[in-house]
């Protein structure tokens, strides 16, 4: 996209906002979001990210988007991973290594089951809503 006018910016925002609200409402494409700040990466988030992508391929799942984000602040529980899947509550997992990443795909994504002992809480309510 080239240089935008005010109207174009507003139109883009409206359409992107809609995508985001669909995501939060648990509609649309399933997303796995990996915390990839320096803290997350130092704790092994890159390995986690690759393990999740690899496991999705192995299980032949194609309708899941794996994305990165910044630090959520749960430093003692890094790497952290948030899973947003239609019809399920949004879940934040902490201390997700290669094995737990794969388990999230096998249980949460494939069977709608939460992976116990690795669930953490979002740190605060979202002021942007």
């Amino acid at each position, binding site marked *: 996209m080239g240089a935008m006018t005010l109207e174009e910016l507003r139109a883009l925002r409206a359409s992107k906002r809609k995508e985001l609200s669909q995501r939060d409402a648990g509609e649309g494409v399933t997303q796995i979001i990996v915390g990839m700040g320096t803290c997350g990466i130092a704790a092994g988030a890159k390995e986690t990210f690759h393990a999740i992508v690899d496991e999705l391929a192995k299980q032949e799942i194609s309708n899941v988007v794996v994305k990165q984000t*910044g630090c959520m602040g749960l430093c003692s529980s890094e790497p952290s991973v948030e899973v947003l899947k239609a019809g399920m509550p949004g879940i934040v997992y902490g201390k997700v290594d290669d094995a737990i990443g794969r388990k999230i795909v096998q249980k949460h994504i494939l069977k709608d089951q939460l992976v116990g002992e690795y669930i953490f809480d979002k740190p605060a309510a979202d002021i942007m809503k």
Partner: protein
Amino acid sequence: MKYKQYVLVCSGTACESSKSKDLIDALYHEVLAADLGADIQIVKTGCFGFCEKGPIVKVLPEETFYVQVKPDDAAEIVQEHLVKGRPVTRLLYDPQQSKAHAKLEDIDFYQKQVRIVLRNCGVIDPDSIDEYIARDGYVALEKVLFEMTPEGVIDELRKSGLRGRGGAGFPTWRKWEFTRQVASDEKYVMCNADEGDPGAYMDRSTLEGDPHSILEAMMIAGYTCGSCKGIIYIRAEYPLAIERLNRAISQAKEYGLMGEKILGTDFCFDIEIRLGAGAFVCGEETALIASTEGGRGMPIPRPPFPAVKGLWDKPTVINNVETYASIPVILMKGGDWYAKIGTETSKGTKVFALTGKIKNSGLIEVPMGTTLRDIIFGIGGGIKDGKKFKAVQTGGPSGGLIPEQYLDTPIDYENLGKLGSIVGSGGMIVMDEDDCVVDVTKFYLDFSVDESCGKCAPCRIGGKTLLTLLDRVSKGTGTDADIASMKQLSTAMQRASLCGLGQTTPNPVLSIIRHFEDELNAHIKDRHCPAGKCSALVRYEIDEEACIGCTVCARKCPVNCIAGERKQPHVIDQERCVKCGACLEACKFNAVIKS
């Protein structure tokens, strides 16, 4: 199989101790008895950071939050809530006994964190300008360019009460106003991202998680102060933040949100990145300017302030990363909205990097006025391994140690100043009974002495002398006269040093003289380190009676200074011992004695 509900049971260490295992068993049993096994999944979770109210049970998707749940309560939760859909009111969290909170967002505890600066961190993909835009990104810029005058922006910032988050707490609107008022054909907007306090990483995480918020705020500063050039001075040690900033800048340019004729207006703005050369003093604004110009990073006396004569002698507004990240929200929601958060003199929120001997270390953002106790024992979950709290260090090498009796102090610029510490950039290091205040202070002092640029004598010579005196104390050779000298030196440094670095270097020393007199005296009068950290005052010996000659300690000793035949008592060579304590940890027969 698809579950209808999920019952999450917190099983962090604190909750484990309050019988969360029995609770999980009871819930399983009740769910099976009610024939709900196929509809409900019971899950153990990590720590929710709400340990004093544990065990905690959360039911999803409705997000009902139960506290202090006992195994006996399982039947009621299952029968009432899961079967009949009626939450068990008596188990809901209710601090004032006034109204029952059913949902997580309503709980005061969770509102102890309010994320303004970190609003997008951990939410959006920092490499996607679209996601930033979707979450009201560039709305503030839009509003400023099309609806507000520069005076209007400054007025909104004045109403918000925002003060500089780099440490000194100077009102942001004044800085902007001063820069705006100076007539000049060229002005600069700078972002100070030279975060260097040990244990502080708020700015790094903000830049890595939400780079566009900084760019947007700098452009707003440009419009307000009459500048079309921004420079971000960032530590070279932050490669990921630099990478993401560079990507964000090129995305903004591609969208026409940066560069010439932004959004079709006459406003132009460009941002470039300068990498720091690794000196702590470059976080001081005049040193930062010198370093940006290619000179040696050394401070110069103020006035003139950068607002009048800054980069290349032109008027320059310099703000810290966290200050900038707050600004788009303030302009979107209004200064009055922001001013409702915080205390009388310190408005808004502050990000802290909570580290040290704390259970849930992490990056937190709380309203100003939150107490240290709420942060450490509420959000942080208390001290690790059941140890006793000793002190919390705020403000890094420029701050001080705060002891237990002041834990209920609401944090703001003035209150922490009164306690001999500072808010600073936001490092918060928690110490337990095993930490020695003299040892910790020596670490900070050593850091400041290392980082002194050497330009002015009070900092260069004063810091070094102070360290020598403190070192004597830690070795058990200090005297009362040394304490008096330290006080005198500290006052001189505070008064006569050229910049903030030298002026605040004595703060950690003064804070232990003030708050930890007993521990300091133990080092001087009894030649004893109560925490056993000052190695010169510690001695490890092996009890001949208790030692069975298993050789474990000798094998663990890193300097091989423990001698003895198998099945014969061992001996530590005191001359060579480095007092690491490995033998004490290794011995299973309590034969190693620390004195």
